[in-house]
């Protein structure tokens, strides 16, 4: 598994409190039961804190799946 995907999986597990979460590039919000508006924002904050970056909310809200999230984080870390 790609490192980025592994890191994000750990973050997702922590935010949702669910050890059974397994992410792949196609995972979207509909695949995770506890994904609600509050956890949604908790997740964004947790990802930002982990990578020490700040997203533009509008940009991150347009992402379709975890694959796009991995690319998005890569872009922020490079940039």
């Amino acid at each position: 598994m790609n490192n980025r995907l592994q890191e994000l999986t750990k973050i997702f597990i922590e935010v949702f409190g669910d050890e059974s979460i397994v992410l792949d590039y196609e995972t979207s919000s509909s695949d995770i039961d506890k994904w609600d508006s509050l956890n949604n924002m908790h997740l964004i904050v947790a990802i930002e804190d982990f990578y020490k970056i700040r997203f533009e909310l509008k940009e991150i809200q347009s992402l379709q799946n975890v694959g796009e999230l991995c690319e998005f984080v890569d872009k922020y870390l490079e940039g």
Partner: protein
Amino acid sequence: MTVICEVLVPKEDSDEEVFVSDLLFRNRDKVDKNVGILDIETSKAVFELECSEEGFVEYLVKVGDVVEIGQAVALIHDSPSSIKGIVPKKTSVEDKEIDSVKDIKVTKDAQELIEKNNLDVSVFDSSFVRKQDVEDFLNKQSASSLNEPSGKAYVVKVLKRSKIIEIEALSHVQNHGLVSTIFMNFSSRKLEKEDNLFSSSTSSFLPLITSNVANLLKEFPSFNAYFFENEIREYSSVNIGIAIDVDSGLKVITIPETNMLTLEEINNLISEGVYKYLRKELSPKDLSNSTFTITDLSQYGIESFVPLINKNQSSILGISSIDPDLKRFNVSLSFDHRVTEGKQASIFLGRLKELFEETE
């Protein structure tokens, strides 16, 4: 050796006083220009006060003080030597040295014990507090709790200022009003998650309900109003507040002129508000002037609940969790009977249900 500038408490909202919740430096520390030097708390938010000049800080207040708008809370000096020591909250001194908090002197050991037990130094009668005094106080407190008539020991937890303010705000209508609550089930059959990751609309109907309520409040102005000295005051604007309470206490995030916004704009403002809440970046402006409140507890698996009406409002809407088997969720409306009545509340909630189920 002079004072370069004073740091004053600005008027951020309707509060006349603010609460000093943290000092971010030690007395005589060097501070840069435009850096936050202390946290103050209004009834709506916690925010940092910055100094406008670089220099050495002298605090004029201590944590826990309630200070008036316009009052000076710190001075910025051009030299540390011109600061006559007071309130060195985080001063590291030797054991036998003393820490002076206004008129009360506290030894370092005593200060550590005071902080560890979350005590306010003002509970001590003496103007010089030693470790022994704090231990005596704690023993007395412990013995006192054990001697309660019920015979049950308890731990005393001091309420945060924000909680006290919350209690005051929520007590007002509940204590003085005529509060009633009605309930209605809404269908969630058509509610499906969108195929994207971080849009808050993916799993929440809060933005849609907020939008529907905003449109209805112009039609039902008594729910966008409040009771004041035998008058009903209807607000000219519709500013829906979204109640949120996770780790940082109850806050109501205001969506100004909600009825003028698109669903997408409402969705974005709610997301932004929740984000700022989690980041503790809400300003008083984000939390002021709401005219109606929605509280969404749908994440917590509850069937229904009675929401409490905020001060200077006549009603509040509560959203409960979806029943996955029955494909529905409960919506409750608490209202002040002095401003409106059950029939109107039922019509309002019925209209909301129609709108929601049509547009869902």
